[in-house]
């Protein structure tokens, strides 16, 4: 079944269609939320919240072929809301990974990259995650963040530059 038809059926309350739709996107949204939030537990909770919001907002979704971007926008907003709830006085830039269960101790590279990514400003971090972990084009990222493509490129450039700086001169970040 095509995605447009699946979305339409899910919008109209067809439970199997909704299950199918969630099944298609769960893994990718889960990965996005975990990286965005900086830890598994929060990422998992936000992922669940994102799909619930998806269901509640499906009636408003206009079929224009950008369902994935729309879903990622919801996930991004849920991540922002979660950050605000956890630390109302902190900005969205601060990662909450300090006092919550961290990722499993993977390779040293993974920890270095994660630490650096967590220190990026929220909007730059998101652009980098969408671009390099989810293969979003510049236009797709622009759609998710509701900003012009040029701004996406700027954020990406600055994000990569800052990441490299955070990783240090001895490390080369390969895209």
């Amino acid at each position: 079944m095509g995605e447009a038809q699946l979305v339409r059926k899910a919008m109209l309350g067809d439970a199997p269609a909704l299950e199918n739709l969630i099944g298609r996107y769960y893994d990718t949204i889960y990965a996005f939320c975990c990286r965005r939030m900086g830890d598994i537990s929060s990422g998992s909770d936000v992922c669940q919240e994102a799909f619930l919001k998806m269901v509640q907002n499906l009636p408003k979704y206009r079929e224009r072929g950008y369902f994935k971007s729309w879903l990622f926008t919801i996930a991004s907003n849920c991540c922002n809301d979660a950050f605000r709830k956890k630390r109302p006085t902190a900005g969205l830039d601060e990662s909450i990974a300090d006092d919550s269960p961290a990722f499993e101790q993977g390779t040293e590279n993974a920890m270095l990259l994660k630490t650096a990514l967590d220190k990026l400003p929220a909007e730059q971090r998101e652009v980098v995650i969408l671009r390099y972990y989810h293969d979003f084009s510049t236009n797709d990222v622009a759609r998710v963040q509701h900003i012009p493509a040029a701004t996406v490129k700027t954020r990406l450039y600055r994000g990569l530059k800052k990441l490299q700086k955070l990783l240090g001169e001895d490390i080369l970040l390969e895209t």
Partner: protein
Amino acid sequence: MKRKKTILFTDYAVPPVVQEQKRACVENALAGMGTVGRGGTLKEQVKTQLGYVGPWFWLGLAAVLVVMLVLLGEASIQAGTQKEALLATLALFSASGPVVACLSAPVLARSYANDMWELEEASFYNLPRLTALRLFICALAALPVMTVLAVAGLGITGAIQGLTALAVPFLLASGINYCILGRLRGLAGSLCSIGIGLLLAVLCPALFLWAEEILPLLWADGTQVVSAITVFACGLFFVLSARRFIRNPSITY
């Protein structure tokens, strides 16, 4: 030269999905399906209604704006003074807004005649509420043009008089509409609100010009103060009656 260590983005991997969590997510989402949610905030309700307002609504509004601009030109010629013409036109235009909204609201007066009133009364937006929302959309849509008119006429009318001519009839007419529609239902409510709207549309320009002549005689330096107070009072009346109307929990008939 020291060899740099290379890190790839893919080095940072997320642990695999736990199937129980995935299942819980699906069940949570399925539980979220049910009665379709309606917008709670005014912004959401306006956005929903905008989806239904068709091209004829906008064309009608544009036509009204064009007529007003033509009237303005005609009035300038007839009245002889630009200031009086502009003030009268602004007042007429402003008072007509609620009438246009009532007329553009779907079949407000035809509801009873076509036996639709029962269905509509039991709906999320009964007709008065729908009219109120459409009126709000009218106001938002007309605001840029009205502002341009008022600003363009600043040099002629003065800021306070221009604002008064623009704001007072609209706020007054809309506030009265909300009061009527909050108490009278069905055909009676529709006819009453349209009738009063038309009456105000005819009276306001004349009243305005009369005030312009009489006020300086009573209080030479006080015209602007009176204008400001009038705008404030009408604004307060509009806000209070609109709030009461929109938040009215009673579903009595």
